[in-house]
């Protein structure tokens, strides 16, 4: 048994024993489980992939004369922002697209530049044009503003992810006879490929399946900066079916993340274009797990072969509650580059980058070992498997027209 306080003292002295979630498996096998649980302080987990529910909120300061952006219309880099707050505050989502983008009118659309790309340009220090039209008030008389904006001139720029770090995800295939263009990439007809999107045994919530250490207020690596878990993520769904070891067999828990965009590094925050689907942002996240006891160690020792995911046909318009599950595969198979399904070998591709995830887990490990990063105690629990908290699909009720 250890406490986070004790672990932090060891970090301070430069004595903390830290492994990545990939390395710990071998170490625990070699040292023996009991010994390893005493020796190891922290295990680092990570993921890097497209996270559509990402965005930034920011404050541009005040112009002279003053302008009220809230209720007006604003674009940054040609991409519409959400102007629905106080005078100088805006929100920009990763999926936002310029008005004139043809979207899928020319099918499949290319989605070359959207909110995610604006965010990347901001971090790279580029000047972007902000254009605003407001309605004007007695206290904010100005109606039009067109100016260059640079990240260093902004007051706060906060990266905010409503949903990130999905605990497990579907493997997407296409049973139809036409190619389809999805958020899981291009899916070739007749089971031509199978795409997945998880770092598997390196992924944060698969190493803490019941959210015993990861919670609200947990300090994390967020795109090269220090960030925090702000809440559970949207569509959090902890009550799904799990394996004997507690690993959800399908998409389950999610996290909401927050951090200072000015501190992030463009290597871990990249504007992304999904052909025929849309623009988004790829985000790198690393989460430390304190090895407080043997139970926690048993969770972080999870292997790719212990994690299974459903193979889902995306040709029929995927919906989480009502989809065709064609089979179940594990992450060792997925990462090998091919899976077997319906007696056939199907090549696999990943949307999330295991290489980048491995790099992030390594960086976080180095930060902790060098005494640059201390662990935080979670201040609130995420609803877990037994909470009864669950994801609901939308039940449509057609409004009666008067």
């Amino acid at each position, binding site marked *: 048994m250890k406490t986070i306080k004790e672990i932090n003292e060891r970090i301070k002295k430069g004595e903390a024993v830290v492994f990545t979630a990939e390395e710990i498996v071998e170490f625990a096998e070699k040292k023996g489980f009991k010994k390893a649980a005493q020796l190891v302080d922290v295990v680092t987990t990570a993921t890097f992939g497209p996270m559509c529910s990402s965005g930034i909120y920011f404050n541009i300061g005040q112009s002279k004369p003053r302008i009220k952006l809230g209720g007006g219309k604003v674009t940054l880099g040609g991409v519409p922002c959400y102007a629905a707050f106080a005078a100088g505050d805006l929100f920009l989502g990763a999926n936002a697209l310029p008005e004139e983008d043809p979207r899928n009118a020319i099918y499949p659309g290319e989605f070359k530049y959207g909110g995610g790309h604006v965010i990347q340009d901001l971090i790279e220090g580029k000047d972007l044009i902000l254009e605003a039209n407001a309605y004007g008030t007695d206290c904010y008389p100005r109606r039009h503003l067109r100016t260059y904006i640079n990240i260093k001139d902004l007051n706060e720029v906060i990266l905010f992810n409503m949903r990130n770090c999905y605990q497990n995800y579907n493997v997407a295939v296409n049973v139809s006879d036409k190619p389809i263009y999805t958020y899981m990439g291009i899916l070739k007809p007749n089971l*031509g490929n199978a795409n997945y999107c998880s770092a598997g045994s390196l992924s944060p919530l698969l190493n803490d399946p019941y959210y015993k250490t990861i919670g609200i207020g947990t300090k994390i690596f967020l795109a090269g900066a220090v960030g925090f878990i702000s809440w559970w993520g949207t569509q959090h769904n902890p009550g799904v079916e799990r394996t004997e070891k507690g690993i959800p067999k399908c998409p389950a828990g999610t996290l909401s993340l927050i951090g200072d965009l000015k501190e992030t590094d463009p290597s871990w925050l990249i504007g992304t274009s999904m052909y025929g689907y849309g623009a988004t942002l790829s985000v790198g996240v690393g989460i430390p797990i304190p090895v407080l006891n043997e139970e926690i160690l048993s969770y972080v020792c999870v292997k790719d072969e212990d994690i299974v995911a459903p193979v889902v046909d995306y040709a029929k318009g995927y919906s989480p509650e009502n989809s065709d599950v064609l089979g179940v595969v594990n992450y060792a198979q997925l990462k090998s580059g091919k899976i077997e399904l319906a007696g056939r070998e199907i090549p696999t591709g990943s949307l999330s980058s295991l290489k980048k995830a491995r790099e992030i887990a390594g960086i976080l490990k180095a930060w902790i070992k060098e005494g640059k990063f201390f662990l935080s105690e979670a201040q609130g629990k995420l609803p877990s498997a037994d909470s009864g908290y669950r994801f609901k699909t939308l039940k449509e009720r057609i409004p009666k027209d008067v």
Partner: protein
Amino acid sequence: MSKKRIVLHFPKELVDKSIVYKLVKDFNLEFNILKAEVNPKEEGLLVLEIKGDEDDFNKGIEYLNKTGVRIQPLSQDVSMDRAKCVDCTACIPLCPTKALVKNPETLEVEFVKEKCIACGICVHVCPYKAMSIVF
């Protein structure tokens, strides 16, 4: 004598014409078929390695152009920008010739230029615009 690779796209109405055979007969060129395919829209794709004199080659290309066959650039025109690639592997199962492969040790996705037939699929697949093709 030189050796070149070209990709030919045949519109539906030309698929069953013996156009390529003429390259041998009238232009003294030798060829190897590296890939042949007819897609669901009944258009044909042919990847050829052509051997012959530079002069004959150019005349052959001129002839193909006149028939209405679309000639695609050579594989040299496809490139991978290492700085942009995040090694996700999304492109790997889409590449028809296994020209994109994952190194299992480093997890790096490598572009094997010699295998590339410049089909252009990876240019669309790559969410990070790491693959490009110059026409």
